């Protein structure tokens, strides 16, 4: 409304952000693409005056790299397990929370608690819970006492203790622990969003359903889920994006070795791979991997959007 001829004033307000964005956002995008296309690019070697051939060599190498395939597999597996489980559990909890009055606020607060935690710190708590105390740096059979609370519980119910994360543990056991931890971590955000969505659904729909004496399960599938579909889509998309960037929760439980003591790197993820390449001063490979990660996230998000376009009901 007010006309100002002082355009430069606007740029003055924008200046700090623009300068910082140029240096730490725009330039990195350009540079990452550049480095990914220079075969075997390394900052150190470049400083030493080496030149690099232009081509897709980095991408080819990354894809052929056995460790990368392992990282990709871990990441995809974690996503495929944790997103549906956490979404479904969060939906159940949110619906349950929405249907009660007493204790609702208190329980809501409890369910949000895991959000305000440090995923490294609480990862260490999970490690303690799944641990078997003893010394295992020597041979495999050196276990002295079993003491992790999870195994205690399993034994209490007459089951056999499982070597979850220690020396000689199986990949399945490791993944189970990671899935449990990541789901635990992912619940609060999803519950918050879904509960917010539920609370904004007009009560009249439920009253109408009551008048029509529709059974609870029908009300849930025919009214609640469709009306909640935008929030569900949002939660699933952000869940996948977060899942593909999984890294610190694994560091929390397994440490920077990214795996049990006898198989370091077994649980490494895409992000872990990028940082490893960076630490090895192989920026070309790191850039290629980062672009591949970006590509995967983009494709998964687009697929999700496409699906939700058909499924989201309004």
């Amino acid at each position, binding site marked *: *409304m*007010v006309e*100002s001829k002082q*355009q430069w*004033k606007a*740029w003055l*307000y*924008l200046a*700090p952000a623009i300068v*910082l964005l140029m*240096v*730490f*956002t725009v330039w*990195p*995008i350009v540079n*990452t693409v550049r480095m990914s296309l220079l075969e075997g690019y390394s900052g150190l070697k470049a400083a030493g005056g080496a030149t690099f051939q232009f081509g897709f060599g980095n991408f080819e190498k990354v894809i052929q790299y056995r460790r990368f395939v392992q990282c990709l597999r871990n990441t995809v597996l974690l996503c495929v397990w944790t997103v549906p489980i956490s979404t479904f*559990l969060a939906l*159940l*909890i949110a619906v*349950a929370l929405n249907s*009660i009055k007493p204790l609702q606020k208190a*329980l809501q607060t*409890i*369910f949000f*608690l895991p959000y*305000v935690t*440090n*995923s*490294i710190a*609480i990862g*260490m*708590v999970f*490690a*303690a819970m799944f*641990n078997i105390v*003893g*010394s*295992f740096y020597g041979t495999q059979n050196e276990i002295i006492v*079993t003491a992790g609370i999870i195994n205690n519980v399993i034994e209490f119910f007459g089951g056999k203790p499982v070597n979850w994360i220690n020396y000689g543990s199986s990949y399945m056991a490791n993944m189970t622990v990671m899935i449990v931890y990541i789901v*635990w971590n992912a619940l609060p*955000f999803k519950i*918050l*969003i879904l509960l917010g969505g539920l609370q904004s659904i007009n009560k009249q729909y439920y009253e109408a359903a009551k008048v029509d004496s529709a059974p*609870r399960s029908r009300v849930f599938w025919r009214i609640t889920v469709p009306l909640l579909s935008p929030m569900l889509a949002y939660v699933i998309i952000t869940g996948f994006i977060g899942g593909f*960037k999984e*890294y*610190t929760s694994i*560091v*929390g439980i*397994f440490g*920077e070795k990214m795996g*049990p003591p006898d198989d370091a790197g077994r649980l490494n993820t895409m*992000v872990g791979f*990028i*940082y490893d390449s*960076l*630490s090895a001063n192989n920026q070309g490979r790191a*850039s290629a991997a980062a672009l591949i*990660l*970006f590509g995967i996230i983009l494709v998964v998000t687009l697929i999700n959007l496409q699906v939700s376009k058909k499924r989201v009901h309004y």
Partner: protein
Amino acid sequence: MTQKSMSVMHDRDLGKTSARQKAGKALVYFGIYAFLILMALIVLFPFYWMLISSVKSLEEYRLSTPTLWPRMILLGNYAEAFTTAALGRLFVNTLIVGVVSTILSLVITVLTAFAFARLEFKGKELLFAALLATMMIPGELFTITNYSTVTTFGWINTYTVLIVPFLVSVFYIYLLRQNFLQIPNELYLAAKVDGTSDWKYLWKVMVPLSLPTLISITILKMMGAWNSYIWPRLVANDEAHRLITNGLRNAFTDTTGDVNYPVQMAAVALVSLPLFLVFVFLRKYIMSGVSRSGIKG
């Protein structure tokens, strides 16, 4: 059959079904509460386990049948944790980085959001769309180049490197701009009539009116500093500048095997405590900020 007896029977039938319905309803509610309380216990269990383990003696912790409440409360673990991990230094470092980066980030966010919400300049829409587009890109993609950039700048192992690269958050700018746009245009015109400059209007009217959003941003930013791990490990992992999460991880490299868990849990509890305090007092702001973000920290 008389009409009366029919109606009596009918009534009895109704009474039966409503009693059954009532019982069914009670059962459903029992089920809902049972489920919620069970889930709540599962969610709370790690915190509980962290706290009771942190005050146990190592011997008690290692008992093959664990105690659910410590026999003796050993606060010495906390003292040991504090010194082992040099938590004091880590707290100070994290606080410095958190406070400085929050203040600077708030100023930049306010200025940028104001320009996008209130001022007119060429290419505004395009620039804003470009900014939003960068939110799609995973942060790792920036990290690779930023690592070389800060090395070139000679910022490795400084506070600067922990603060400057993350001062601009497109998401916070977006959040605040939306908030600014909701402030009626008339207030701006009124302020002009009242003799205010753009600058004064921004700080006297827009900022106070957006306080809830700014508080949300502050908390999320502080939490970000508290929880950041990857970047600090990469660029400032020396004693003098190390942040809390890295310090914790570095001090207790072993998570499995024969570890002094009580002390480790005490350290974890100490690191978690500030977050809990913030949560207890500012829950409203955190939850409203988070529900609009979807990004942790």
